[in-house]
């Protein structure tokens, strides 16, 4: 009994929700929508850079997931499976906007920018507190938008969303070393760009 109990406790709560949804319980699926819609929107917005497209992706990704629940193997987490659908939908939207031009997560990554830190000034303590909420959000948005999207999406999945390196690799169809190298470059590029705003001001600087 103890062993069975333990196994039940270890089961991810999504497993039961997915099973109920699969057997026609729409409310169980709605719980999943409620749980993950913000993250899916965030990922879609980071890829498409377009609000309407990102909202469409949220809708389409959940509908596609619902349609394909039978195909969900259960050997990956429901969330990473859902993210994979959302990434594909987002790339499709981006392709449409760019009039059919092929778009992949490998675009624009041939850059040396940020691979070596240049701005080595220390930052003020808690530099984000020097900005209002809206101003800070604008700085963060502008800064991350400037990254090649192949870097941006790895950073968002791995560092913001908290997926593991392996999950990020699986979700994006990349190798683990590719995810690692992109993550380092993404972190360093963001750091470099944010340094413009957050570095300690020299005496006399405004």
């Amino acid at each position, binding site marked *: 009994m103890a062993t069975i109990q333990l196994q039940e406790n270890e089961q991810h709560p999504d497993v039961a929700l997915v099973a109920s949804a699969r057997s026609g319980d729409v409310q169980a*699926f709605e719980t999943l929508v409620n749980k993950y819609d913000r993250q899916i929107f965030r990922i879609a917005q980071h890829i498409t850079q377009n609000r309407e497209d990102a909202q469409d992706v949220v809708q389409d990704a959940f*509908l596609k997931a619902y349609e394909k629940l039978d195909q969900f193997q259960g050997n990956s987490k429901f969330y990473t499976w859902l993210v994979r659908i959302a990434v594909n939908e987002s790339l499709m939207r981006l392709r449409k906007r760019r009039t059919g031009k092929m778009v992949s997560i490998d675009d624009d990554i041939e850059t040396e920018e940020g691979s070596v*830190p240049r701005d080595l000034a*220390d930052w003020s303590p808690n530099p984000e507190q020097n900005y209002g909420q809206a101003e800070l959000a604008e700085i963060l948005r502008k800064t991350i938008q400037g990254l090649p999207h192949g870097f941006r999406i790895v950073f968002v999945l791995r560092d913001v969303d908290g997926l593991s390196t392996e999950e990020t690799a699986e979700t994006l169809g990349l190798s683990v070393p590719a995810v690692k190298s992109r993550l380092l470059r993404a972190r360093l590029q963001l750091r470099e760009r944010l340094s413009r705003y957050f570095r300690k001001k020299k005496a006399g600087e405004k």
Partner: protein
Amino acid sequence: MTCTEFLALLDELIDDDVSAQMRSELQEHMQGCEHCEVTLSTTRKTIEIYRSHEVYELPDSVRERLHVAIIARCKHGC
């Protein structure tokens, strides 16, 4: 340890994925290298700021509209 070697292990250090031996080598390098120390602390801060500030909010009104649309289509077969 050179700065290049330090940089190559920066992510492992941030993600706490280094052996005790390697960690002390990295720390030893940082003690004599302000640039690498700053690179580490500001990169950590970069991650922390992005993690704790939502860049793209999804307003409740939009969420509600999306939920209604999604669930209606689920109920009637997608």
